[in-house]
């Protein structure tokens, strides 16, 4: 009868012999963590309410339009907002979504001191800020593209001859993807820059929404009050609708949305203005995080 066997295993501390991936693994981790933070995943219920609500605010219009399209059939489709006009309305919830959620990615790390733990990792502060920026940019792309795709598919299925509709309007897809990307680029960089400016999320959100609302009011007040080419140029003050100028150019249509007032300003200037409004906050963000210390 063999002796009863017994063994004690060493569950003590073991040195780590596994692989050590370099900075890309760290950037990927920051990206994934950034997206999870923005969506409040892994953080209990309360953190999910705001992102959830805002996400719904974007999906519902698309779903409603689809239902209308399927009910009212071919005839009603023309008065539905086409792909070219979707962003005229969608910009408001997207900007609010970004203004409230984006600062969360930067302010909390600074306020609770986790940033100093990142800086003692084998990454540089620019890895950190690029990881966080990419996280919110990807999220914004989803937030901007998904409703459009739903709308496009819905309208497509709703039309009598799906193939024929697709053949005529296939070029809409790359256009609204590009226009969406332009919008996402804008609504990602501005709020993140505001988050680098102040430690408190609420102040950063108030700052972005404040700037946008006041710019809208001042821009319109001036362009209505004065009108003509001078009024058109002054309409550029309404920076909130800058991405819509890009959208109108991509679909080269006369816009009837908020971008209408600045129509007479030459295309090159409007594109230049858009690029400035993305590059300046991006530069400010990059510089602010380059020299941040633990």
């Amino acid at each position, binding site marked *: 009868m063999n002796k009863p066997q017994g063994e004690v295993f060493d569950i003590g501390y073991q040195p780590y012999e596994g692989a050590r991936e370099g900075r890309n693994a760290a950037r990927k981790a920051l990206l994934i963590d950034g997206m999870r933070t923005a969506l409040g995943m892994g953080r209990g219920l309360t953190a999910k309410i705001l992102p959830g609500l805002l996400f719904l605010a974007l999906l519902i219009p698309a779903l409603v339009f689809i239902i209308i399209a399927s009910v009212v059939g071919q005839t009603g489709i023309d008065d539905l907002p086409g792909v070219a006009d979707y962003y005229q309305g969608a910009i408001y919830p997207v900007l609010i979504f970004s203004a409230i959620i984006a600062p969360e990615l930067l302010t909390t790390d600074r306020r609770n001191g986790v940033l100093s733990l990142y800086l003692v990792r084998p990454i540089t502060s620019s890895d950190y800020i690029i990881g966080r920026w990419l996280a919110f940019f990807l999220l914004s792309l989803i937030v901007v593209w998904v409703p459009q795709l739903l709308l496009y598919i819905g309208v497509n299925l709703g039309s009598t001859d799906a193939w024929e509709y697709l053949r005529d309007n296939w070029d809409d897809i790359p256009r609204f993807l590009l226009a969406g990307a332009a919008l996402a680029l804008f609504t990602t960089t501005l709020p993140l820059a505001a988050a680098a400016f*102040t430690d408190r999320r*609420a*102040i950063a959100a*108030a700052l972005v929404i*404040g700037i946008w609302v*006041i710019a809208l*009011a*001042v821009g319109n*007040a*001036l362009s209505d*009050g*004065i009108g003509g080419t*001078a009024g058109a140029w*002054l309409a550029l003050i309404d920076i909130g609708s800058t991405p819509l100028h890009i959208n109108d150019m991509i679909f080269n249509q006369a816009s009837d949305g908020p971008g209408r007032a600045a129509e007479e300003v030459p295309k090159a200037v409007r594109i230049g203005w858009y690029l400035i409004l993305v590059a300046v906050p991006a530069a400010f963000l990059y510089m602010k995080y380059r020299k941040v210390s633990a």
Partner: protein
Amino acid sequence: MMGRNMMGKSMMAGFIKDPVLHISLKQLSGPRRMTIVTLLAIIPVVITSVIVGVNGGVPDEFAAPIFGRMFVAAILPIVVMALATAAFGNELEDKTLSYLVLKPVSRLRLVLPKYAVTVLMTGPLLVVSGVVVALVAYDADARTATAVAVGIAVGVVTYSSIFMWMGLVTTKALGFALFYVFLWEGLLSEFLSGIRFLSVRAYTVSIMHGIEDINLAELDELSIRLPVAAVGAGIVTVLFFYLTVRRLRRMDVP
């Protein structure tokens, strides 16, 4: 006469050198806060001068959008809110309030300088901005300028008292203040006309309209009679001032 003058002067000297007034001035005059506040105050002046410069005059419907909606409904409350909620709000958040409370100074003599600094730092700025807009828009009509000045002054005095109290009651004072201004005074007063009797915006506009109702005729749709507005503003100011002192006496200071 001499005695009263002396007492007045020593009170004034005491007031100027009052340590609480001194630190409140230092706390609230942070560069970032001041630039935001001054920028906001300048916006209506820029808009009016550009419009008058280009068109040579203001469109007929001007008083309501500039004074009614932009100035009184948005800029004035936001500017006052930015400072008034911070009067005690900063002390609460930075945990420095205990330095004031643990001193042999009556709670009234702590609240008074804080209130004075808030009014002094927002009042003149906004009154000047309002007067300039009035003078530019209505070719230097003194009566309109006075109406706007008095109205804004009352608005500042009343809002300061409410938002100072809010800053002491909750750390999220800024949020509640925004809610009060844009929902209670903004949205609801459009539908429920009764709210006019309880909204600082209505008091401000009514006082402006009460003093001068030709150029500012468009402001009548939100107005109540001048004496009612003045008394209402007075009551609200004193009430929230008292509530602040009472709160400071009874609260647990962090």
